[in-house]
């Protein structure tokens, strides 16, 4: 028995050391080679999750790159933004999606639940510090271990295929609305009745938004918080008062553009919180014109309640 335990421990230790090396070596190799480079003309970037990802079609907006990622919490957005700003000093303005669900506790899940961590961690772990890794491990240890195995797999894969490009080339665009889906979502929202007030907060997500803002300020970038268009039946408004409370408390000095209530008919929505291709086109063309009219973005602290977009 003693021999078995001794050999098992030695083997486990050896395996552990080699596994750590298998994770750490590719990580440090990638940290030095990862490319977050954008085209030279990139003056504006948009960061956030799927709401902004589906709203800003950067092929229709001059000098703008949409770097939003579906299902991305600010924890990972911060890591990405840090690298992007470092490697692209010519960026002038950072548009940060700031919408209702980004203050809600669901963002904690988006940061460390099995599915999201397994998806994001392997990509961003080379750029995380010890404290950030501890945050993830302390909230979901088993998911953290599993994500590290995936990190080794993806890291070695990237090195072998010499794939050091970390910025996706094409933005996500949701296909044209499926009317049946949208109708049933609207009906479902109506059935649920009036919104109940929700005041639960994701402290981690708000902290990381503050970190992003601080990072941008340190790098002398213009910062604009943006709320993308939302359908009037969207249930996420339930935390509206908390949302504004957080905005006033931490980001009152930051420019804010609220497109959540722009007039867009149902044919522009994929679902209640995402524009479809048609909606994104209308919105992006308007936004392009808007940027040209306001090149310095000096008077953009406005709430666009009655904006009516041409959607032909």
């Amino acid at each position, binding site marked *: *028995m003693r*021999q*078995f335990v001794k050999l*098992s421990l030695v*083997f486990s230790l*050896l*395996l552990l050391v*080699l*596994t750590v090396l*298998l994770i750490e070596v590719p990580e440090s190799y990638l940290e030095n080679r990862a490319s977050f480079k954008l085209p030279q003309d990139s003056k504006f970037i948009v960061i956030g999750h799927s709401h902004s990802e589906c709203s800003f079609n950067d092929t229709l907006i001059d000098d703008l790159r949409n770097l939003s990622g579906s299902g991305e919490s600010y924890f990972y957005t911060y890591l990405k933004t840090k690298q992007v700003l470092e490697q692209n000093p010519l960026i002038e303005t950072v548009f940060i999606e700031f919408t209702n669900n980004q203050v809600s506790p669901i963002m904690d899940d988006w940061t460390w639940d099995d599915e999201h961590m397994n998806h994001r961690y392997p990509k961003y772990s080379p750029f995380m510090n010890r404290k950030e890794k501890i945050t993830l491990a302390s909230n979901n*240890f*088993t998911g953290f*271990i*599993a994500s590290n*195995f*995936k990190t*080794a*797999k993806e890291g*070695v894969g990237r090195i072998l295929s010499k794939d050091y490009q970390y910025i996706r080339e094409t933005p996500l665009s949701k296909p044209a609305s499926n009317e049946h889906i949208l109708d049933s979502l609207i009906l479902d929202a109506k059935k649920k009745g009036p919104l109940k007030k929700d005041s639960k907060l994701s402290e981690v997500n708000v902290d990381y938004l503050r970190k992003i803002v601080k990072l941008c300020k340190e790098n002398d970038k213009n910062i604009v918080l943006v709320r993308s268009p939302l359908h009037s039946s969207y249930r996420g408004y339930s935390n509206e008062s908390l949302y504004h409370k957080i905005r006033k408390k931490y980001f009152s000095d930051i420019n804010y553009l609220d497109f959540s209530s722009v007039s867009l008919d149902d044919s522009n929505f994929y679902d209640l919180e995402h524009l479809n291709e048609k909606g994104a086109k209308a919105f992006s063309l308007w936004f392009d014109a808007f940027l040209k009219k306001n090149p310095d973005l000096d008077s953009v602290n406005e709430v666009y309640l009655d904006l009516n977009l041409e959607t032909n």
Partner: protein
Amino acid sequence: MLFNSIDFAVFLPIVFILYWFVTQKHLLVQNLLIVFASYLFYGWWDWRFLLLIFSSTVIDYFVGRGLAKQDIKARRKALLWTSIVVNLGILGVFKYYNFFVDSFVDMFSLFGMQMKASSLDIILPVGISFYTFQTLSYSIDVYKRKLEPTKDFIAFSAFVSFFPQLVAGPIERASNLLPQFYKKREFNYSKAIDGMRQILWGLFKKIVIADNCAEYANIIFNNSADYSGSALVFGAVLFAFQIYGDFSGYSDIAIGTSKLFGFNLKQNFNFPYFSRDIAEFWRRWHISLSSWFRDYLYIPLGGSRGSISMKVRNTFIIFIVSGFWHGANWTFVVWGALNALYFLPLLLFNKNRVNIDTIAKNRLLPGFKEFIMILFTFGLTVFAWIFFRADSMEHAISYITNIFSSSLFSIPYIFEPDTGLPILPKMILLLIALFVLVEWLGRDGQYGISNVVKIRSRVFRWSIYLAICFMIILFHGKQQEFIYFQF
């Protein structure tokens, strides 16, 4: 709790330490620990269904005690039927209720009679078919006086719920496993090392082979209308490797884990894809289930004795029931019937026990004829797996119809429909090839890498183990639940 989860990686060493270092001096306490650990293992998934295992344990224990005291044949029979009705009743309600209701409604609608019947929203308890059959075998063996009924309720509970094989087998006979709970287990170094090695190989089969094949097989099966005939054949082959890696991998982990605790479970797979005919395949695939049906259904029905019509009847019964055991869907029934059709010619021409020995024994490669026979048997098996994997009969038929089209002889079109991305990295094909090679070289052992023990150099042995560990880390597929959990 899944074997391929971090939870189990923490659970196993804790139970191992408690088992050998804390409770070893007292057999009763050690058995109690097994019961507690097994209930925790099962309850991790859904604690509510522990009541079913406990009920099954209590009923069969008392049926056994009743049979011990009873000599009157009619009363003994009544006790046996109590066990059968209760166990199969629970299985029937949870697994087959909706199937029967839906089938009756469909059948009546064929005659123009519209019936309304509501299906129940039932969750299928994991592993119910496995532990039900295990406890049933105890009652039947006691009834037939092949086994002394136990007086030890804790040992019997441990036998029914033994966590390594609780949810996906091997289905153990009471005559093999139960007596092992009566005796004090002694730690055996070689056996424990062998167990660890078998667990490692099982994890490789599951995580590298099955989970990777599953991803691609799922894409092809779920979008079968978008693929060429050749790609569909490819999808079916991938599923064949998925189900083998998945299920035999589970069995290896179960058997290996049992060895760590000093138990011997029966071999459940014996390199079935190297079989030279279907009869041999069924002696090598899911052996614990095949032998269960042989002993408790086929032989009582008369087996292969009697007239030709009896032989045909018995063969169809055993294969169809075996198919139905796998799931409440007509696809499984057809899968069973198809295997009966494959098997019948061998039985009728008395060729079903021709290939008994290890394939190409003492030779590196099979002969040409053997190779063709292996390929042919594999092909038949793959064809039958299409029914097993398909969601419905319509799906299976359209899948097969699409195979036999002009695109059958084209280069397999294996791109994901929506994205146009290639779905199968070359690395997976290399891993499958490596897997087949290792299994071929280890075919005279209990599992693929059991012969590694013969290598004298510890450095070399450890290098092999480490290489397998790194392949698991680097080439793991997306975690999938074990297929046989649903049965």
